[in-house]
Every structure is written in C-alpha cells, then in structure tokens.
C-alpha cells in the first residue's frame, strides 16, 4: 500500500458549505495560493447539504442590524454565546447570500427584486442543487479536490499544525498532505446517541449520518481547546422522516397542537412565552405533553389550501424528499391528518447550537496553524448555512494573512509510520469487534446514561459518571476492531472519532452543574438556571499522554 505526499499552502478539511466557500474566497484574494480540499465523500453531493436546502435562516431583512441579530441569539441561548463571533457573522450574512446567489442559487424574490421575507430572519431558496452549485464554483478555481479521502489526524509537530493525514477509500492509499495552514470544516457529530428510528431505518436521521465528528476528534487528540459540547442540539422534527417542522410552521403558519387538538404552547406553556417561546421550549413542551398523557403532538396541516400544500411539497422536495413519500402513503394525506412531530436524538453541532473549537474573532483555534469554520467552530449558535459561509470567509482571510513567511515543513517519517499503522490496524485483524458493535454499544451508553431519547434527554451526576466509566472501557477495546474492506475501515475510524467526541461531551455535561438549556442540557440534580455561577463557558483540553480531559472555564 502506497503513501501519497501532497503539498499545499492551505489545506481545507471537508468540502461542505464552509470548505467550498473558503476555497472560493482564497482564490478570489490570492489566485496563486495552492489550495487542497480533503473530502470524505464526493464534493458534488456531500455532507449536510447533500439532501438540499429550502431556506436560509440567518439573513438580515431591512430594519435589522448585526446588533439586533446578536440580541436575538443571546436571548435564544440564555445569555451564553460568544457575542464577538456572532456579531462578525451577522455583519457578513447578506453579502455571502448575494455571492451564492451569483454562483447560481435561486432565491425567492418580491416584485421589487428584494428577497421575499419568509420568516423574521429567513428567506426561501430553491436549494436542491446548492451543493453542486458550490462545487462548480470551486471547480472554477485552481483548487485540488481530493475526493473519497477520509481525514484521520492532523500532522502536529508539537508547535504547529502542518497538515493532515488521510486514507484513500477508493485507492487504499495513505495520504500525507503538508500545508502552511489548515482550515478544519468537517461539520459536527451525528451517531453519538441511539437514533429515534431504529434498525433498518437507523440512518433516517436529522443530521448527515457520515458527519462522525472527525474534525472535533482530530482537534481533541491534538490538544485543541473545545467549548460548549454540553450545549447539545435536539431538533423538533416530523416523526419518522425527520423533515423540518419550520418548513410547515414558518412556511405555511401551521400551529402546534396536542392529541386533544389544543394549542398546547399557548394553553399550558404561557410562562415560557406560549407561541413566542424559545426554540428549545417548543421541544420541551412537546416532551412534557407526552409525559402528561396529552401526546403525541402535531403540526395542524388540515387547514392547508391547495396552493399552500403545493408550495409545502415543493419546499420539501428541495430539502427532505422522504416526507413526500410519507404523505403519499395510505392514510397520511396532510390535509386529512395533522403531521406528527417529535424530538430527534441529541447531536453535537456548532451551527444550530455551539459545540466546537474555541476560536478567536479571526477564527484561529488554540493550535497554531489551525483555523475553524462552520459546524466545527464553537461559540456561535444559529449560524446556519449563511453564517457558515461568513465564517469560512473570515477563516480564509486570516489563514492567507498568517501563512506569509511560513514555509512547508518536512513531515517526520516516524509520525507517518505511526499514524499509518493506527489507521490500517483494523484491516490486518482476522477477527475482533465489528464497528457496528462498537456503534451500538456507544449509542446505548449515551442514550441511557448521558441523556438520550429513552430518558427524555435528562441528565444527572450518577448516570454521567457511569457513562464516563463505560466510555473509558469502550475506548480501551477500540484497538480490537476489525474491518474486512475499505468501507468497513471507514466505519471503524468513525467509531474511534465518535468515542473521543462522546467522552469530551460527557465531561462537559458533568461540569455544568445547573440547567441552562431546556432538553439540550437539563440536569435533574441541578434543575435551576444559576446565573450567579454559570454565566460562563465550559471548555476542555484533552491530554493524550495521560488520557485525561481537563476542564477550564472562560468568562463571557
């Protein structure tokens, strides 16, 4: 099995929304810069945007300002956000949307040519082909795209990040990409908890099932500081097909009703703000209704007219085509039967919530030479796709500036050898543990002891300590994993990454001894929000030599 050596000025890991935008940005500013994108799947249809997108939910309509955007995010996240990061995102939102429109994305407009308002901070797009459009923009630059190469670890000499290792899924080769700067843009982590669809439909989930938290795990292993993993994300979605409820609620103004047909938010949750409550309270109320025997809950689609129904179906075809099949099934017509909603399993993401790398305003991580953008970057929730583009722009600009005067370093042969043998070990084992077994064990530990669906997302110390213990055992067994082919090997590598992410997540959940974010982080043993103590960031740094995760707090 061969080793491929590739040199770059800037290496981008992950060719998704952030990665593609960063490559285009670098080309605009410095056309001769050698950019390499390392992409696990194929850049044309990979990651979160593979399915398409029907709305951009971070946009400043006339009358709104970066300040008003920051206030909104701060309120939604109970006072704990990085205002400097959210502010810089808000400043760039409208510009990046315009840029992507020019790349070819169709956006709904009013007669005077402005974008039509879909919700308060939202516009309607026709984004079935958003990913191919971004990939096409990348193709017009000189960027070298390495498709089907899964990143395995950073190349770290103890002082700076000087590239990354990867495994070629198709050619079976080991890749060593040296770079003066690395932008990590791999997305967040799914598959940590038991999914709400079991068995044969286990991948029918909200987030891309192949976003295994690899970017987080690589940073964790190299000792990067991470923030706010305890701020998990749980989406409220259409049952079985995980289609976004916002498309129905915002798109055609359907109300949330319980099994009795009551407007339950208004009737029972007035103290949380009724229909004007925070995003997480919509989920909390839905969970509480089920506990009170008034579930399941629905979005009332029975009053839709023909035009609304058609519009709704178009929106879903652009983003979640499965729901069209659900509605085509026997007795599932949305005009006759309201659409059932439920919470998903928890995910670790920095685009909806704020789990990720601790970064400065210029998107530098705590490791020299490493920059973060998009879902892997922490502290700036509700950035969504447009915020991700802004972050990519900032990270690209900073990386370009920082590489001036930096030269490529030779990679130590010993480092290459060690990583290559770590990555390939599962293929050499004739017998051992299957990745599927590790996956199921991990998900069961997390579901039961770290606040999964089966315990209504609730957490408390004793269970979390048990999760810590079991995860440490599980990590000890990972060296016994076996893989029979490349596809299988990628699954094994994903297991390793997910376990590293889960262990950090559990430490964060143990550390925050209060209840800050309903459902996302609900402590049964500390049920109140405690502003006197916990208006702070919970951060962590992993120490590989001792296998310890050290917690640190950072002020707002």
């Amino acid at each position, binding site marked *: 099995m061969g080793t491929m050596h590739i040199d770059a000025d800037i290496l981008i890991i992950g060719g998704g929304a952030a990665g593609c935008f960063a490559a285009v940005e670098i080309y605009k500013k410095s056309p001769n810069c050698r950019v390499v994108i390392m992409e696990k799947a194929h850049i044309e249809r990979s990651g979160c945007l593979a399915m398409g997108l029907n709305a951009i939910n971070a946009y400043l309509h006339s009358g709104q300002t970066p300040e008003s955007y920051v206030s909104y995010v701060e309120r939604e996240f109970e006072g704990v956000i990085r205002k400097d990061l959210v502010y810089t995102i808000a400043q760039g939102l409208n510009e990046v949307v315009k840029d992507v429109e020019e790349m*070819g994305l169709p956006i709904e407009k009013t007669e005077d040519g402005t974008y039509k308002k879909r919700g308060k901070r939202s516009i309607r797009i026709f984004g079935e082909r958003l990913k191919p459009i971004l990939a096409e923009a990348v193709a017009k630059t000189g960027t070298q795209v390495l498709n089907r190469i899964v990143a395995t670890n950073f190349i770290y000499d103890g002082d700076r990040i000087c590239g990354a290792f990867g495994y070629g899924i198709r050619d079976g080769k080991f890749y060593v990409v040296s770079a003066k700067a690395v932008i990590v843009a791999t997305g967040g982590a799914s598959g940590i908890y038991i999914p709400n669809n079991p068995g044969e439909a*286990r*991948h029918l989930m909200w987030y891309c099932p192949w976003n295994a938290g690899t970017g987080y795990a690589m940073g964790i292993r190299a000792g990067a500081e991470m923030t706010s993993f305890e701020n998990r994300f749980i989406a409220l979605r259409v049952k*079985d097909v995980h289609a976004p409820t916002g498309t129905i609620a915002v798109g055609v103004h359907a109300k949330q009703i319980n099994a009795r047909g009551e407007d339950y938010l208004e009737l029972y949750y007035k103290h949380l703000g009724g229909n004007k409550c925070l995003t997480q309270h919509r989920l909390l109320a839905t969970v509480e209704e089920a506990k009170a025997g008034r579930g399941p809950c629905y979005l009332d689609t029975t009053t839709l007219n023909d035009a609304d129904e058609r519009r709704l179906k178009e929106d879903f075809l652009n983003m979640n*085509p499965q729901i*069209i099949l*659900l509605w*085509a099934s026997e007795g599932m017509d949305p005009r006759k039967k309201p659409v059932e909603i439920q919470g998903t399993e928890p995910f670790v993401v920095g685009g909806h919530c704020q789990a990720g790398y601790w970064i400065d305003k210029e998107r530098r991580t705590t490791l020299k030479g490493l920059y973060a953008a998009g879902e892997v970057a922490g502290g700036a929730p509700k950035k969504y796709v447009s915020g991700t583009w802004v972050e990519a722009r900032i990270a690209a600009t900073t990386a370009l500036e920082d590489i001036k005067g930096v030269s490529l370093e030779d990679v130590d042969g010993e480092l290459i050898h060690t990583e290559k043998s770590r990555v390939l070990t599962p293929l050499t084992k004739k017998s051992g543990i299957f990745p599927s077994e590790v996956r199921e064990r991990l998900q069961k530990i997390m579901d039961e002891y770290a606040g999964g669906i089966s315990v209504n997302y609730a957490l408390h110390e004793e269970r979390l300590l048990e999760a810590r213990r079991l995860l440490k055992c599980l990590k000890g067994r990972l060296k016994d994993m076996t893989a029979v*082919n490349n596809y299988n090997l*990628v699954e094994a590598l994903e297991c390793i990454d997910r376990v590293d992410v889960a262990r950090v997540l559990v430490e964060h959940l143990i550390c925050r001894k209060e209840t800050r974010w309903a459902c996302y982080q609900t402590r049964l043993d500390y049920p109140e929000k405690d502003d006197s103590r916990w208006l702070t960031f919970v951060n962590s740094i992993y120490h590989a030599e001792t296998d310890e995760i050290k917690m640190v707090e950072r002020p707002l």
Partner: protein
Amino acid sequence: MGNQNPMRVCNLDLRVYVMSIFIDENICNGCRGLPEARCERICPGDLCYRKENMKAAIRDQSACWTCACCVKECPVQAIELRLPFQAYSNGASLKARLKRDRTIWTVWDAGGHQEEFIIQARRLKGD
C-alpha cells in the same frame, strides 16, 4: 476490495424491494464507459457500488440516509426513493430527473395516483 459486501452473507436480494432506494436492474446500464457509476461516485455515504454484471447496487440498506442524491443523479432514472417503512407506505415511490436549470419530480402514491413537480434548481445567466 471496495466492492465486497460484508452484509451479503446470504442471498438477501429480496430486500431491495422494500427499502430506502430501489434500483431497477432492467433500467440500470451501470454507466458503462465511466470509471464509476454516477450513484457510486456521488453517494455521500459511499453505499452504491457496481456489481460484476455492471449493475448498480446498494451495500447496506440500513445505512441509507434517503437523501435521494442517487435518485436525482441517475441519468436513466433507474433508481427510486422508497421509505424504509415500506410496509405501511404500500408502494409509494419517488423519482427525479435533472435538467440544467430545474428538477422534475414524479411521485406515485399508495393508490397509484401520480403527481409531478417541476422546480427551479439553478439560475441561468440573465435570470
């Protein structure tokens, strides 16, 4: 090596009729002449592959996200999307055709009724 299917320990071909995506071997031409079939090239989960008979297949139905990328990219519409809970969706299916600037979707419901959607997907110069 990449084409081995660890799930296929016995003949489970019947399963393709009830899960996630259905590839019609009578229509699939395996994208002959291309180094990879188009579905194999773009599946975000690396699930599609080309069998020895040059027909496309999915290696693990339970790993499918139902993102429909393969349904859209298949040049001969050999692939349709089906719900994993086909037992109750009772034959409903969805197909797509990509045009330069629009996507055409056809959905068949449980009663065999057909509905078509033509949706803009890309701005062309001058739009």
